[in-house]
C-alpha cells in the first residue's frame, strides 16, 4: 500500500465530483459517482486488511507550504481507526448512492446531486485518513460545504435554503474552535503533524501553560468545541433537526452515519491530547446532557425524520459519554460504527415510507404501513430494535459497553444515561406504533418501494442485527479496549431499560386513537425547548447590533475621506492660481516670449520680400561706401 494508492481513496470521489459537475444526464452522473466510490471502497478494504495485520504507517504526500523555517507537509496515516472509518464511510456511502439513484431518479438536477454527494465522500475520506491537522481541517471544511449544498439542495424551498444556511453557520462556529485549537497547537509545538515519527503533535508533551490553562487542555477544549459543532452536541445541535429539509439519502448519509461521526472521530483521533488535557469528564457530561435533552425532544415530535434526527443527537451524546468515560476512544467508536448502520437503515426506511406515502412526512397521517410495505417494515423494525438496544442486537453490544464504561467511571452519569436509554426505547416504540399499526390515515394508499430501494434496506438490516455479535470483540480489541468483565447490574439495567421502555410505549400507544393529541408530546418538547428562539434572542440581537455598529463606523470613515479630499483640492487651487499663474506664467514664460515676439516683428519688417527695396539698400550702401572712400582720400 503506497502513499499514492492511499491518496487515491479520497481523490477518486473528488474526481467524480469534478466530472459530474458539468453533466446534465442524471443516470450517467450516478454511474460515475457510484463507480468512483466503489473503487475507493475496494481500496479502503485493502487498506483495512493491511491496517488489520500491519502496524500504523505514515505516508507523507507533498509540501503544502514552506515559508522560512516552517514547513507544512501533508501526510496520510493508516491505522486501524482510520481504515475502519474509511471502509465504513465508503460502504455506507455506496449503499446510500445506490438508494438515491432511485430516490432522485425524476429530479431534474439529479446530476448535480451526485456531484455534491461525491464531493462530500471525498471530504469525509480526506478527513478520516489525514495525519496533518491542516489537511484534516481542510477536509472538515469541504464536508461542511457539502452538507450545506446537500441540505439546501431544493433551494427553491425557502425552508431548505434557511436550513442549509443555519447548518453552515452553526458548524462554522464549531470550526472556528477547531481552527483556534489548530493555531494554538501550531504555535506551541511548531508542527501540525499528528504522528511524525516521534515529533508529532500527539507524541510531544505540550506542557507549557497558555493563558493560565495547560496547552493540552486548551487545545483539546477548542478541538472539542469543533467536534461539538460538527456532531451536534447541546449548544450547537439546533442545525441537525432542521437539516431534515434535504432529501432523505442526504439525511441518511450525513446525519446518520458519517458527517456527525466526524466530531466523535476527531476526539477519538486526538484522544491523547484530551487525556493529557484532562477534559475527558467535560466531554462525558456534555454527551450525557445532550443525550437526555435530545431524547426528551424526540418524544414530542410528529415528523418521522425529525424524531430520527433527535435520536441521532442523543446517540451522539452517548458516544461522547463513551469517549469521555473510557480510558480509550474505542468504546465510543464501537458505538459509532454500530449506530451508523442501524441509523442509516432507519433513515432509508423512513425515506422509503415517505416515498411510498407520496412524500408524506407527518406520522399522524401515516399508519397501516406494515400491511402496505412489508419489506420496508421488516427492515425498519430490525433497525428499531438495534436502536433500542434489544438484547443481542448490534446496538445492545455497543451501548452496553458504554454503560459499562460509565458505570465504572461516574455513577450519577450512569443513571443519566440509563434514563435517556429508557426514553429512547419509549419514543421508538411510539414512532413504530404511529407508523405501522392501525389503518392508514393518509390521503393516498401507500405502495411498496422499488427493488433498488428495498435491497439496500435489507443489507443494512442484516448488518444492524449481526454487526455487534460477530465483530464486537475483535473490533474493540483492535481499537485498544481492554476487555473487562461486564458487571451484572449494568447488564440488568440495560435489559430492563430496553424492554421496559418498549412495554411502556406499547401500553401507552397501542389501541389509542392516534388522531387524538399525544399525551407525551408536551408543548415544550414540541417546541424543541425553545432553543431557536433563545438563540435568536441572544445571538440574533447581538449580531444586528454589531452590524448597526459597523454601518455607523463605515459612515464615519466616508465622512473623513470626504473631508480629506476637500482639503487637498483647496490647497491645489491655491497654488495653481496664485503661485503658478502669476509668478511663473506671467512673469517668466509668457512675458519673455512676448518680448521676443515684438523683437522679431520689428526685424521682420526689414525682410519684406520687396525686391526693389533690397536693391535700393544695396545702392545706398555703395553710395555711403563711396562717400567714405572719398572722405578717406581727401
Amino acid at each position, binding site marked *: 500500500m503506497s502513499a499514492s494508492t492511499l491518496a487515491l481513496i479520497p481523490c477518486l470521489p473528488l474526481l467524480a465530483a469534478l466530472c459530474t459537475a458539468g453533466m446534465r444526464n442524471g443516470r450517467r452522473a450516478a454511474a460515475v459517482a457510484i463507480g468512483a466510490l466503489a473503487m475507493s471502497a475496494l481500496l479502503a478494504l485493502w487498506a483495512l486488511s493491511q491496517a488489520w495485520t500491519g502496524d500504523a504507517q505514515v505516508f507523507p504526500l507533498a509540501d503544502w507550504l514552506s515559508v522560512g523555517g516552517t514547513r507544512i507537509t501533508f501526510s496520510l496515516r493508516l491505522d486501524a481507526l482510520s481504515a475502519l472509518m474509511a471502509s465504513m464511510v465508503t460502504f455506507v456511502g455506496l449503499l446510500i448512492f445506490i438508494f438515491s439513484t432511485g430516490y432522485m431518479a425524476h429530479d431534474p438536477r439529479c446530476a448535480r446531486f451526485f456531484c455534491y454527494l461525491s464531493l462530500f465522500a471525498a471530504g469525509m475520506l480526506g478527513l478520516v485518513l489525514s495525519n496533518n491537522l491542516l489537511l484534516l481541517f481542510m477536509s472538515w471544511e469541504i464536508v461542511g460545504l457539502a452538507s450545506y449544498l446537500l441540505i439546501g439542495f431544493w433551494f427553491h424551498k425557502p425552508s431548505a435554503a434557511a436550513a442549509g444556511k443555519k447548518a453552515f453557520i452553526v458548524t462554522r462556529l464549531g470550526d472556528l474552535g477547531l481552527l483556534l485549537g489548530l493555531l494554538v497547537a501550531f504555535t506551541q509545538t511548531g508542527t501540525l503533524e499528528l504522528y511524525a515519527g516521534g515529533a508529532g503533535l500527539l507524541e510531544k508533551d505540550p506542557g507549557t501553560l497558555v493563558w493560565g490553562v495547560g496547552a493540552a487542555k486548551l487545545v483539546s477544549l477548542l478541538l472539542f468545541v469543533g467536534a461539538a459543532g460538527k456532531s451536534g452536541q447541546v449548544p450547537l445541535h439546533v442545525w441537525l433537526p432542521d437539516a431534515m429539509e434535504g432529501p432523505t439519502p442526504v439525511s441518511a448519509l450525513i446525519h446518520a452515519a458519517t458527517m456527525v461521526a466526524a466530531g466523535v472521530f476527531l476526539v477519538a483521533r486526538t484522544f491523547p491530547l484530551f487525556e493529557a488535557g484532562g477534559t475527558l469528564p467535560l466531554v462525558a457530561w456534555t454527551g450525557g446532557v445532550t443525550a437526555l435533552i435530545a431524547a426528551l425532544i424526540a418524544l414530542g415530535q410528529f415528523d418521522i425524520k425529525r424524531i430520527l434526527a433527535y435520536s441521532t443527537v442523543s446517540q451522539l451524546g452517548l458516544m461522547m459519554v463513551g469517549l469521555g468515560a473510557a480510558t480509550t476512544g474505542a468504546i465510543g467508536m464501537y458505538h459509532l460504527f454500530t449506530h451508523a448502520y442501524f441509523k442509516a437503515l432507519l433513515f432509508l426506511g423512513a425515506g422509503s415510507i415517505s416515498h411510498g406515502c407520496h412524500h408524506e412526512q407527518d406520522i399522524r397521517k401515516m399508519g397501516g404501513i406494515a400491511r402496505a410495505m412489508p419489506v420496508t417494515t421488516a427492515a425498519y423494525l430490525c433497525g428499531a430494535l438495534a436502536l433500542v438496544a434489544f438484547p443481542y442486537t448490534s446496538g445492545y453490544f455497543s451501548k452496553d459497553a458504554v454503560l459499562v464504561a460509565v458505570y465504572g467511571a461516574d455513577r450519577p452519569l450512569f443513571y443519566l444515561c440509563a434514563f435517556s436509554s429508557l426514553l429512547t426505547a419509549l419514543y421508538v416504540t411510539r414512532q413504530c406504533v404511529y407508523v405501522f399499526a392501525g389503518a392508514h390515515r393518509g390521503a393516498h394508499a401507500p405502495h411498496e418501494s422499488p427493488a433498488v430501494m428495498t435491497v439496500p434496506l435489507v443489507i443494512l438490516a442484516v448488518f444492524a442485527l449481526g454487526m455487534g455479535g460477530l465483530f464486537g470483540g475483535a473490533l474493540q480489541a483492535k481499537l485498544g479496549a481492554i476487555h473487562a468483565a461486564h458487571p451484572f447490574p449494568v447488564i440488568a439495567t440495560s435489559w430492563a431499560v430496553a424492554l421496559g421502555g418498549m412495554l411502556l410505549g406499547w401500553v401507552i400507544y397501542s389501541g389509542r386513537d392516534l388522531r387524538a393529541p399525544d399525551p407525551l408530546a408536551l408543548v415544550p418538547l414540541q417546541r424543541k425547548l425553545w432553543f431557536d428562539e433563545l438563540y435568536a434572542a441572544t445571538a440574533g440581537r447581538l449580531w444586528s447590533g454589531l452590524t448597526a455598529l459597523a454601518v455607523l463606523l463605515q459612515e464615519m470613515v466616508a465622512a473623513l475621506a470626504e473631508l480629506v479630499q476637500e482639503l487637498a483640492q483647496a490647497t491645489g487651487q491655491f497654488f495653481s492660481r496664485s503661485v503658478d499663474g502669476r509668478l511663473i506664467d506671467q512673469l517668466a514664460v509668457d512675458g519673455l516670449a512676448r518680448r521676443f515676439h515684438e523683437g522679431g516683428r520689428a526685424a521682420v519688417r526689414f525682410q*519684406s*520680400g*520687396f*525686391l*526693389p527695396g533690397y*536693391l*535700393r539698400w544695396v*545702392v545706398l550702401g555703395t553710395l555711403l561706401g563711396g562717400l567714405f572712400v572719398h572722405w578717406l582720400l581727401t
Partner: protein
Amino acid sequence: MTLNHYLVLSAILLGIGLLGVLTRRNIIVVLFSIEILFNAANLNFIAFWRFGPNPEALMGPMFALFAIAVAAAEVAVGLALVIAVYRHFKTVDLEKLDTLREP
C-alpha cells in the same frame, strides 16, 4: 574730347541704368538697365585706357572684352531665370515675387 566728357557720359548712363533698376516693376526692364550699367562701365574702361598713361598695355580693351563676355553670360542666365520664374509665378512683377514659399 577729354576724359571728363566720357566720364560724365558714363555717369549719366549709370544714373539712367540705376533709374531703371530701382524704379521699374518689370524684371526684364531691370535686366535691360543692368545691361546699361555694364556698358557704362565698359565705356569707362575704354575711356581710361584711351586717356590713360600707357595705352600699349591694352588693359582697357582686354578688360572690356572680358566684361562683355561676362555680361553676355549674365544676360543668358538672368533671362533663363526670369523665364523659370515666370513659368512658376505666372508674373514678372517684382513686387509680387515676395515669397520663397511654394505659391
